[in-house]
Protein backbone atom coordinates (compact mmCIF):
# COMPACT_ATOMS: atom_id res chain seq x y z
CA UNK A 1 0.00 0.00 0.00
CA UNK A 2 1.32 3.41 -1.01
CA UNK A 3 0.47 5.91 1.72
CA UNK A 4 1.67 8.84 -0.38
CA UNK A 5 -0.90 8.27 -3.10
CA UNK A 6 -3.94 9.55 -1.12
CA UNK A 7 -1.82 12.40 0.26
CA UNK A 8 -0.81 13.42 -3.23
CA UNK A 9 -4.51 13.64 -4.06
CA UNK A 10 -5.58 15.28 -0.83
CA UNK A 11 -7.73 17.77 -2.75
CA UNK A 12 -9.87 14.91 -4.08
CA UNK A 13 -10.59 13.79 -0.52
CA UNK A 14 -11.03 17.34 0.76
CA UNK A 15 -13.79 17.86 -1.78
CA UNK A 16 -15.20 14.49 -0.80
CA UNK A 17 -15.30 15.39 2.90
CA UNK A 18 -17.04 18.66 2.10
CA UNK A 19 -19.62 16.95 -0.13
CA UNK A 20 -20.32 14.27 2.48
CA UNK A 21 -20.73 16.82 5.28
CA UNK A 22 -22.96 19.12 3.23
CA UNK A 23 -25.13 16.23 2.08
CA UNK A 24 -25.39 14.80 5.61
CA UNK A 25 -26.25 18.04 7.38
CA UNK A 26 -28.62 19.33 4.70
CA UNK A 27 -30.48 16.00 4.76
CA UNK A 28 -30.73 15.91 8.54
CA UNK A 29 -31.84 19.57 8.53
CA UNK A 30 -34.48 19.07 5.85
CA UNK A 31 -35.48 15.84 7.56
CA UNK A 32 -36.20 17.77 10.75
CA UNK A 33 -38.65 20.03 8.99
CA UNK A 34 -40.37 17.03 7.44
CA UNK A 35 -40.42 15.20 10.75
CA UNK A 36 -41.78 17.96 12.97
CA UNK A 37 -45.27 18.24 11.38
CA UNK A 38 -45.42 14.46 10.86
CA UNK A 39 -44.56 13.67 14.48
CA UNK A 40 -46.99 16.31 15.77
CA UNK A 41 -49.75 14.93 13.55
CA UNK A 42 -49.13 11.36 14.70
CA UNK A 43 -48.94 12.34 18.36
CA UNK A 44 -52.15 14.37 18.23
CA UNK A 45 -53.86 11.94 15.89
CA UNK A 46 -54.81 14.94 13.78
CA UNK A 47 -56.29 14.38 10.30
CA UNK A 48 -53.81 12.73 8.01
CA UNK A 49 -51.78 11.21 10.84
CA UNK A 50 -52.08 7.78 9.24
CA UNK A 51 -50.40 9.15 6.13
CA UNK A 52 -47.53 10.50 8.21
CA UNK A 53 -47.25 7.21 10.09
CA UNK A 54 -47.29 5.29 6.81
CA UNK A 55 -44.54 7.48 5.39
CA UNK A 56 -42.34 6.91 8.43
CA UNK A 57 -43.02 3.16 8.37
CA UNK A 58 -42.18 2.73 4.68
CA UNK A 59 -38.99 4.81 4.77
CA UNK A 60 -37.78 3.21 7.99
CA UNK A 61 -38.55 -0.27 6.79
CA UNK A 62 -36.64 -0.20 3.50
CA UNK A 63 -32.99 0.35 2.48
CA UNK A 64 -31.79 3.86 1.69
CA UNK A 65 -30.04 2.52 -1.42
CA UNK A 66 -33.34 1.37 -2.93
CA UNK A 67 -35.08 4.62 -2.00
CA UNK A 68 -32.31 6.52 -3.77
CA UNK A 69 -32.54 4.25 -6.84
CA UNK A 70 -36.32 4.72 -6.93
CA UNK A 71 -35.95 8.49 -7.08
CA UNK A 72 -32.84 8.73 -9.27
CA UNK A 73 -33.54 5.94 -11.79
CA UNK A 74 -37.22 5.20 -11.12
CA UNK A 75 -38.82 8.58 -11.75
CA UNK A 76 -37.28 8.79 -15.22
CA UNK A 77 -39.63 5.98 -16.27
CA UNK A 78 -42.53 8.44 -16.47
CA UNK A 79 -42.79 10.78 -19.42
CA UNK A 80 -44.76 13.35 -17.44
CA UNK A 81 -41.85 13.65 -14.99
CA UNK A 82 -39.34 14.09 -17.79
CA UNK A 83 -41.47 16.72 -19.43
CA UNK A 84 -42.17 18.68 -16.24
CA UNK A 85 -40.22 21.58 -14.78
CA UNK A 86 -39.05 19.30 -12.01
CA UNK A 87 -36.92 17.30 -14.44
CA UNK A 88 -34.06 19.80 -14.28
CA UNK A 89 -33.77 18.88 -10.59
CA UNK A 90 -34.67 15.20 -10.76
CA UNK A 91 -32.10 14.37 -13.41
CA UNK A 92 -29.29 15.58 -11.16
CA UNK A 93 -27.75 12.87 -8.98
CA UNK A 94 -26.99 15.42 -6.25
CA UNK A 95 -30.58 16.58 -5.90
CA UNK A 96 -31.92 13.05 -6.02
CA UNK A 97 -29.54 12.01 -3.26
CA UNK A 98 -30.53 15.03 -1.18
CA UNK A 99 -34.25 14.31 -1.64
CA UNK A 100 -33.90 10.60 -0.84
CA UNK A 101 -31.65 11.23 2.19
CA UNK A 102 -33.97 13.97 3.53
CA UNK A 103 -37.03 11.75 3.25
CA UNK A 104 -35.13 8.92 4.91
CA UNK A 105 -33.79 11.04 7.73
CA UNK A 106 -37.21 12.64 8.16
CA UNK A 107 -38.78 9.21 8.68
CA UNK A 108 -36.34 8.25 11.43
CA UNK A 109 -36.66 11.70 12.99
CA UNK A 110 -40.46 11.37 12.97
CA UNK A 111 -40.16 8.27 15.10
CA UNK A 112 -37.63 9.94 17.44
CA UNK A 113 -39.78 13.06 17.93
CA UNK A 114 -43.00 11.07 18.31
CA UNK A 115 -41.33 9.10 21.08
CA UNK A 116 -40.17 12.31 22.74
CA UNK A 117 -43.68 13.83 22.56
CA UNK A 118 -45.16 10.69 24.06
CA UNK A 119 -42.84 10.81 27.07
CA UNK A 120 -43.72 14.42 27.86
CA UNK A 121 -45.06 14.44 31.44
CA UNK A 122 -48.81 15.08 31.19
CA UNK A 123 -48.63 17.47 34.12
CA UNK A 124 -46.45 19.89 32.14
CA UNK A 125 -49.12 20.22 29.48
CA UNK A 126 -52.02 20.29 31.94
CA UNK A 127 -50.34 22.99 34.00
CA UNK A 128 -49.88 25.12 30.90
CA UNK A 129 -53.53 24.64 29.93
CA UNK A 130 -54.62 25.50 33.47
CA UNK A 131 -52.63 28.75 33.26
CA UNK A 132 -54.56 29.66 30.15
CA UNK A 133 -51.95 28.95 27.48
CA UNK A 134 -53.40 28.57 24.01
CA UNK A 135 -52.79 25.24 22.25
CA UNK A 136 -50.25 26.95 20.01
CA UNK A 137 -48.38 28.36 22.99
CA UNK A 138 -48.40 24.96 24.67
CA UNK A 139 -46.82 23.43 21.57
CA UNK A 140 -44.11 26.04 21.08
CA UNK A 141 -43.34 27.02 24.66
CA UNK A 142 -43.87 23.78 26.60
CA UNK A 143 -44.01 20.69 24.40
CA UNK A 144 -41.21 21.38 21.90
CA UNK A 145 -38.51 22.73 24.23
CA UNK A 146 -38.92 19.82 26.59
CA UNK A 147 -39.36 17.12 23.92
CA UNK A 148 -36.48 18.31 21.73
CA UNK A 149 -34.08 18.09 24.65
CA UNK A 150 -35.18 14.56 25.40
CA UNK A 151 -34.88 13.68 21.72
CA UNK A 152 -31.41 15.18 21.36
CA UNK A 153 -29.28 12.10 22.24
CA UNK A 154 -31.14 9.95 19.72
CA UNK A 155 -31.04 12.77 17.21
CA UNK A 156 -27.28 12.89 17.47
CA UNK A 157 -27.28 9.16 16.80
CA UNK A 158 -29.37 9.81 13.72
CA UNK A 159 -26.79 12.29 12.40
CA UNK A 160 -24.05 9.64 12.60
CA UNK A 161 -26.44 7.13 11.01
CA UNK A 162 -27.06 9.57 8.13
CA UNK A 163 -23.32 10.24 7.76
CA UNK A 164 -22.79 6.52 7.25
CA UNK A 165 -25.86 6.19 5.06
CA UNK A 166 -24.64 8.98 2.79
CA UNK A 167 -22.09 6.57 1.21
CA UNK A 168 -24.99 5.58 -1.03
CA UNK A 169 -24.36 8.87 -2.87
CA UNK A 170 -21.13 7.47 -4.31
CA UNK A 171 -23.16 4.71 -5.99
CA UNK A 172 -25.01 7.29 -8.07
CA UNK A 173 -21.77 8.98 -9.20
CA UNK A 174 -21.49 11.66 -6.51
CA UNK A 175 -17.92 12.44 -5.45
CA UNK A 176 -18.35 12.17 -1.70
CA UNK A 177 -15.64 10.63 0.50
CA UNK A 178 -16.23 7.12 -0.79
CA UNK A 179 -16.60 8.49 -4.32
CA UNK A 180 -13.14 10.06 -3.99
CA UNK A 181 -11.76 6.72 -2.80
CA UNK A 182 -13.31 4.87 -5.72
CA UNK A 183 -12.01 7.45 -8.20
CA UNK A 184 -8.48 7.13 -6.81
CA UNK A 185 -8.59 3.34 -6.97
CA UNK A 186 -9.90 3.34 -10.52
CA UNK A 187 -7.34 5.90 -11.70
CA UNK A 188 -4.29 4.04 -10.38
CA UNK A 189 -5.72 0.56 -10.55
CA UNK A 190 -5.12 -0.03 -6.83
CA UNK A 191 -7.34 -1.85 -4.34
CA UNK A 192 -6.52 -0.55 -0.87
CA UNK A 193 -5.47 3.09 -0.88
CA UNK A 194 -8.77 4.77 -1.74
CA UNK A 195 -10.97 2.59 0.46
CA UNK A 196 -8.63 2.65 3.46
CA UNK A 197 -8.39 6.44 3.23
CA UNK A 198 -12.18 6.69 2.99
CA UNK A 199 -12.62 4.37 5.99
CA UNK A 200 -10.18 6.45 8.07
CA UNK A 201 -11.90 9.70 7.10
CA UNK A 202 -15.36 8.36 8.00
CA UNK A 203 -13.95 7.12 11.32
CA UNK A 204 -12.36 10.49 12.07
CA UNK A 205 -15.59 12.37 11.30
CA UNK A 206 -17.69 9.90 13.31
CA UNK A 207 -15.48 10.25 16.39
CA UNK A 208 -15.27 14.02 16.03
CA UNK A 209 -19.08 14.22 15.87
CA UNK A 210 -19.56 11.86 18.81
CA UNK A 211 -17.04 13.87 20.84
CA UNK A 212 -18.79 17.12 19.94
CA UNK A 213 -22.19 15.67 20.90
CA UNK A 214 -20.82 14.56 24.29
CA UNK A 215 -19.67 18.12 24.95
CA UNK A 216 -23.05 19.54 23.95
CA UNK A 217 -24.83 16.98 26.09
CA UNK A 218 -22.74 17.83 29.13
CA UNK A 219 -23.13 21.53 28.60
CA UNK A 220 -26.82 21.83 27.78
CA UNK A 221 -28.48 18.67 29.01
CA UNK A 222 -26.89 18.19 32.37
CA UNK A 223 -30.23 18.05 34.10
CA UNK A 224 -31.18 15.00 32.05
CA UNK A 225 -28.00 13.00 32.60
CA UNK A 226 -28.66 11.40 36.00
CA UNK A 227 -32.06 10.25 34.84
CA UNK A 228 -30.48 8.59 31.85
CA UNK A 229 -27.96 6.78 34.03
CA UNK A 230 -30.81 5.42 36.13
CA UNK A 231 -32.57 4.28 33.01
CA UNK A 232 -29.39 2.57 31.89
CA UNK A 233 -29.17 0.71 35.17
CA UNK A 234 -32.78 -0.49 34.90
CA UNK A 235 -32.65 -1.98 31.47
CA UNK A 236 -29.73 -2.81 29.26
CA UNK A 237 -31.59 -2.07 26.07
CA UNK A 238 -32.14 1.48 27.23
CA UNK A 239 -28.54 2.06 28.18
CA UNK A 240 -26.75 0.17 25.44
CA UNK A 241 -25.76 2.23 22.42
CA UNK A 242 -28.63 1.85 20.03
CA UNK A 243 -28.74 2.33 16.34
CA UNK A 244 -31.80 4.01 15.05
CA UNK A 245 -33.73 1.49 13.06
Amino acid at each position, binding site marked *: MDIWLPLKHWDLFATGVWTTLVLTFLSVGAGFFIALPCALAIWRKSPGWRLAAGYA*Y*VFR*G*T*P*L*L*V*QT*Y*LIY*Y*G*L*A*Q*FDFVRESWAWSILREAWWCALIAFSLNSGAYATEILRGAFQTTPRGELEAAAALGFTPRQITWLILLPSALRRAAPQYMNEIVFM*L*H*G*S*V*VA*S*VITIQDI*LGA*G*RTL*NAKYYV*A*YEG*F*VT*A*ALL*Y*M*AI*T*FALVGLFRLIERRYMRHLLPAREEAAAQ*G*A*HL*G*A*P*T*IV*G
Partner: protein
Amino acid sequence: MDALIAYAPLLGRGALVTIALALASMALATTLGALGAAAKLAGGAVARALAAAYTTLIRGVPDLVLILLVYFGGQRLANDIGGALGWDYVEISKFWAGVLSIGVIYGGYLTETFRGAYLTVPRGQAEAAKALGMRPLATLWTVTGPQMARFALPGYGNVWQVLVKSTAVVSVIGLDDLVGLADKAAKSTREPFTFFLAVILVYLAITSVSNALLARAEARLNLGQGR
Protein backbone atom coordinates in the same frame (compact mmCIF):
# COMPACT_ATOMS: atom_id res chain seq x y z
CA MET B 1 -46.74 -4.72 -14.79
CA ASP B 2 -46.36 -7.47 -17.42
CA ALA B 3 -42.60 -7.13 -17.14
CA LEU B 4 -42.85 -7.54 -13.38
CA ILE B 5 -44.80 -10.78 -13.74
CA ALA B 6 -42.30 -12.08 -16.29
CA TYR B 7 -39.41 -11.32 -13.95
CA ALA B 8 -41.16 -12.49 -10.78
CA PRO B 9 -39.33 -15.85 -10.54
CA LEU B 10 -35.99 -14.06 -10.95
CA LEU B 11 -36.86 -11.55 -8.23
CA GLY B 12 -37.99 -14.42 -6.01
CA ARG B 13 -34.55 -15.99 -6.36
CA GLY B 14 -33.01 -12.61 -5.56
CA ALA B 15 -35.16 -12.31 -2.43
CA LEU B 16 -33.91 -15.72 -1.29
CA VAL B 17 -30.30 -14.56 -1.76
CA THR B 18 -31.06 -11.43 0.27
CA ILE B 19 -32.63 -13.47 3.09
CA ALA B 20 -29.75 -15.98 3.07
CA LEU B 21 -27.26 -13.10 3.14
CA ALA B 22 -29.05 -11.49 6.08
CA LEU B 23 -29.30 -14.75 8.05
CA ALA B 24 -25.65 -15.70 7.45
CA SER B 25 -24.51 -12.16 8.40
CA MET B 26 -26.65 -12.25 11.54
CA ALA B 27 -25.18 -15.63 12.50
CA LEU B 28 -21.64 -14.24 12.17
CA ALA B 29 -22.62 -11.05 14.00
CA THR B 30 -24.15 -13.09 16.83
CA THR B 31 -20.99 -15.19 17.15
CA LEU B 32 -18.74 -12.13 17.15
CA GLY B 33 -21.09 -10.34 19.55
CA ALA B 34 -21.02 -13.27 21.98
CA LEU B 35 -17.20 -13.49 21.77
CA GLY B 36 -16.86 -9.73 22.16
CA ALA B 37 -19.18 -9.63 25.16
CA ALA B 38 -17.37 -12.58 26.75
CA ALA B 39 -14.04 -10.80 26.19
CA LYS B 40 -15.32 -7.57 27.72
CA LEU B 41 -16.97 -9.26 30.72
CA ALA B 42 -14.55 -12.04 31.55
CA GLY B 43 -11.46 -11.55 29.40
CA GLY B 44 -7.94 -10.64 30.43
CA ALA B 45 -6.41 -7.24 29.78
CA VAL B 46 -5.47 -8.09 26.18
CA ALA B 47 -8.87 -9.55 25.28
CA ARG B 48 -10.65 -6.57 26.83
CA ALA B 49 -8.48 -4.09 24.94
CA LEU B 50 -9.06 -5.95 21.66
CA ALA B 51 -12.82 -6.05 22.20
CA ALA B 52 -12.88 -2.35 23.11
CA ALA B 53 -10.88 -1.46 19.98
CA TYR B 54 -13.20 -3.61 17.86
CA THR B 55 -16.46 -2.11 19.12
CA THR B 56 -15.13 1.43 18.97
CA LEU B 57 -13.48 1.34 15.55
CA ILE B 58 -16.18 -0.62 13.75
CA ARG B 59 -18.76 2.00 14.70
CA GLY B 60 -16.84 4.54 12.61
CA VAL B 61 -16.95 2.69 9.29
CA PRO B 62 -19.94 2.75 6.92
CA ASP B 63 -21.06 -0.68 5.66
CA LEU B 64 -20.39 -0.05 1.96
CA VAL B 65 -16.80 1.11 2.62
CA LEU B 66 -16.01 -2.12 4.46
CA ILE B 67 -17.72 -4.24 1.79
CA LEU B 68 -15.68 -2.63 -1.01
CA LEU B 69 -12.48 -2.95 1.01
CA VAL B 70 -13.11 -6.62 1.84
CA TYR B 71 -14.15 -7.51 -1.71
CA PHE B 72 -11.65 -5.58 -3.84
CA GLY B 73 -8.87 -5.54 -1.24
CA GLY B 74 -9.46 -9.23 -0.53
CA GLN B 75 -9.34 -10.01 -4.24
CA ARG B 76 -6.03 -8.19 -4.61
CA LEU B 77 -4.66 -9.95 -1.55
CA ALA B 78 -5.78 -13.34 -2.87
CA ASN B 79 -4.14 -12.59 -6.22
CA ASP B 80 -0.87 -11.52 -4.57
CA ILE B 81 -0.73 -14.55 -2.29
CA GLY B 82 -1.90 -16.86 -5.06
CA GLY B 83 0.67 -15.42 -7.45
CA ALA B 84 3.48 -15.97 -4.95
CA LEU B 85 2.43 -19.54 -4.28
CA GLY B 86 1.67 -20.34 -7.92
CA TRP B 87 -2.05 -21.03 -7.55
CA ASP B 88 -4.60 -20.55 -10.25
CA TYR B 89 -6.75 -17.44 -10.15
CA VAL B 90 -8.77 -17.35 -6.93
CA GLU B 91 -12.05 -15.52 -7.01
CA ILE B 92 -13.43 -14.01 -3.83
CA SER B 93 -17.12 -14.78 -3.34
CA LYS B 94 -19.33 -11.70 -3.39
CA PHE B 95 -21.79 -13.36 -1.07
CA TRP B 96 -19.18 -14.22 1.56
CA ALA B 97 -17.44 -10.85 1.24
CA GLY B 98 -20.84 -9.35 2.09
CA VAL B 99 -21.43 -11.75 4.99
CA LEU B 100 -17.97 -11.05 6.41
CA SER B 101 -18.31 -7.25 6.19
CA ILE B 102 -21.87 -7.00 7.52
CA GLY B 103 -21.28 -9.67 10.17
CA VAL B 104 -18.20 -7.86 11.47
CA ILE B 105 -19.98 -4.48 11.61
CA TYR B 106 -23.08 -5.66 13.46
CA GLY B 107 -21.05 -7.98 15.69
CA GLY B 108 -19.69 -4.80 17.21
CA TYR B 109 -23.18 -3.55 18.04
CA LEU B 110 -24.26 -6.97 19.37
CA THR B 111 -21.23 -7.06 21.67
CA GLU B 112 -22.71 -4.07 23.50
CA THR B 113 -26.23 -5.53 23.42
CA PHE B 114 -25.10 -8.82 24.97
CA ARG B 115 -22.80 -7.18 27.47
CA GLY B 116 -25.52 -4.81 28.63
CA ALA B 117 -28.06 -7.63 28.92
CA TYR B 118 -25.65 -9.80 30.92
CA LEU B 119 -25.08 -6.97 33.38
CA THR B 120 -28.80 -6.83 34.19
CA VAL B 121 -28.71 -10.37 35.64
CA PRO B 122 -28.11 -10.07 39.40
CA ARG B 123 -24.63 -11.27 40.40
CA GLY B 124 -26.12 -13.61 42.98
CA GLN B 125 -27.54 -15.79 40.22
CA ALA B 126 -24.12 -16.65 38.80
CA GLU B 127 -22.63 -16.92 42.28
CA ALA B 128 -25.33 -19.33 43.41
CA ALA B 129 -24.74 -21.48 40.34
CA LYS B 130 -21.03 -21.50 41.06
CA ALA B 131 -21.66 -22.41 44.69
CA LEU B 132 -23.72 -25.36 43.48
CA GLY B 133 -20.73 -26.50 41.44
CA MET B 134 -22.09 -25.67 37.99
CA ARG B 135 -19.59 -25.13 35.24
CA PRO B 136 -19.44 -21.69 33.53
CA LEU B 137 -21.02 -22.84 30.26
CA ALA B 138 -23.80 -24.71 32.06
CA THR B 139 -24.42 -21.58 34.16
CA LEU B 140 -24.67 -19.46 31.06
CA TRP B 141 -26.97 -21.91 29.32
CA THR B 142 -29.38 -22.67 32.16
CA VAL B 143 -29.15 -19.76 34.65
CA THR B 144 -27.87 -16.45 33.34
CA GLY B 145 -28.61 -16.93 29.64
CA PRO B 146 -32.39 -17.30 29.92
CA GLN B 147 -32.54 -14.33 32.27
CA MET B 148 -30.54 -12.05 30.00
CA ALA B 149 -32.52 -13.04 26.89
CA ARG B 150 -35.41 -10.80 27.89
CA PHE B 151 -33.12 -7.78 28.01
CA ALA B 152 -31.09 -8.70 24.94
CA LEU B 153 -34.05 -9.26 22.61
CA PRO B 154 -35.10 -5.63 21.89
CA GLY B 155 -31.51 -4.68 21.00
CA TYR B 156 -31.05 -7.91 19.04
CA GLY B 157 -34.22 -7.29 17.06
CA ASN B 158 -33.16 -3.72 16.38
CA VAL B 159 -29.80 -4.88 14.99
CA TRP B 160 -31.55 -7.47 12.82
CA GLN B 161 -33.85 -4.86 11.30
CA VAL B 162 -30.94 -2.53 10.50
CA LEU B 163 -28.83 -5.43 9.20
CA VAL B 164 -31.52 -6.57 6.76
CA LYS B 165 -31.56 -3.12 5.15
CA SER B 166 -27.78 -3.05 5.16
CA THR B 167 -27.65 -6.13 2.90
CA ALA B 168 -28.96 -4.02 0.00
CA VAL B 169 -25.57 -2.36 -0.53
CA VAL B 170 -23.88 -5.72 -1.25
CA SER B 171 -25.49 -5.40 -4.69
CA VAL B 172 -22.96 -2.62 -5.38
CA ILE B 173 -20.17 -5.22 -5.76
CA GLY B 174 -22.39 -7.09 -8.22
CA LEU B 175 -24.09 -9.69 -6.04
CA ASP B 176 -27.29 -10.98 -7.64
CA ASP B 177 -29.45 -10.34 -4.62
CA LEU B 178 -32.91 -8.80 -4.73
CA VAL B 179 -31.56 -5.30 -5.46
CA GLY B 180 -28.92 -6.48 -7.94
CA LEU B 181 -31.38 -8.53 -9.98
CA ALA B 182 -34.04 -5.81 -9.87
CA ASP B 183 -31.42 -3.36 -11.17
CA LYS B 184 -30.66 -5.68 -14.10
CA ALA B 185 -34.35 -6.21 -14.84
CA ALA B 186 -34.97 -2.45 -14.60
CA LYS B 187 -32.24 -1.79 -17.16
CA SER B 188 -33.36 -4.39 -19.68
CA THR B 189 -37.08 -3.52 -19.47
CA ARG B 190 -36.59 0.24 -19.00
CA GLU B 191 -39.07 0.14 -16.15
CA PRO B 192 -36.92 1.09 -13.15
CA PHE B 193 -39.78 2.50 -11.08
CA THR B 194 -41.81 -0.69 -11.30
CA PHE B 195 -38.92 -2.89 -10.21
CA PHE B 196 -37.53 -0.74 -7.43
CA LEU B 197 -41.03 -0.27 -6.05
CA ALA B 198 -41.39 -4.05 -6.02
CA VAL B 199 -38.09 -4.27 -4.13
CA ILE B 200 -39.38 -1.74 -1.59
CA LEU B 201 -42.47 -3.90 -1.05
CA VAL B 202 -40.40 -7.06 -0.53
CA TYR B 203 -38.21 -5.32 2.07
CA LEU B 204 -41.35 -3.98 3.78
CA ALA B 205 -42.71 -7.51 3.92
CA ILE B 206 -39.46 -8.80 5.48
CA THR B 207 -39.47 -5.94 8.01
CA SER B 208 -43.13 -6.43 8.91
CA VAL B 209 -42.83 -10.20 9.35
CA SER B 210 -39.69 -9.67 11.48
CA ASN B 211 -41.55 -7.08 13.58
CA ALA B 212 -44.43 -9.46 14.21
CA LEU B 213 -42.14 -12.37 15.13
CA LEU B 214 -40.06 -10.17 17.43
CA ALA B 215 -43.17 -8.88 19.18
CA ARG B 216 -44.32 -12.47 19.78
CA ALA B 217 -40.89 -13.49 21.04
CA GLU B 218 -40.81 -10.49 23.37
CA ALA B 219 -44.26 -11.29 24.72
CA ARG B 220 -43.15 -14.87 25.36
CA LEU B 221 -39.91 -13.92 27.10
CA ASN B 222 -41.75 -11.41 29.27
CA LEU B 223 -44.32 -13.96 30.46
CA GLY B 224 -44.50 -13.77 34.22
CA GLN B 225 -43.02 -10.31 34.34
CA GLY B 226 -46.45 -8.91 35.04
CA ARG B 227 -46.50 -6.35 32.30
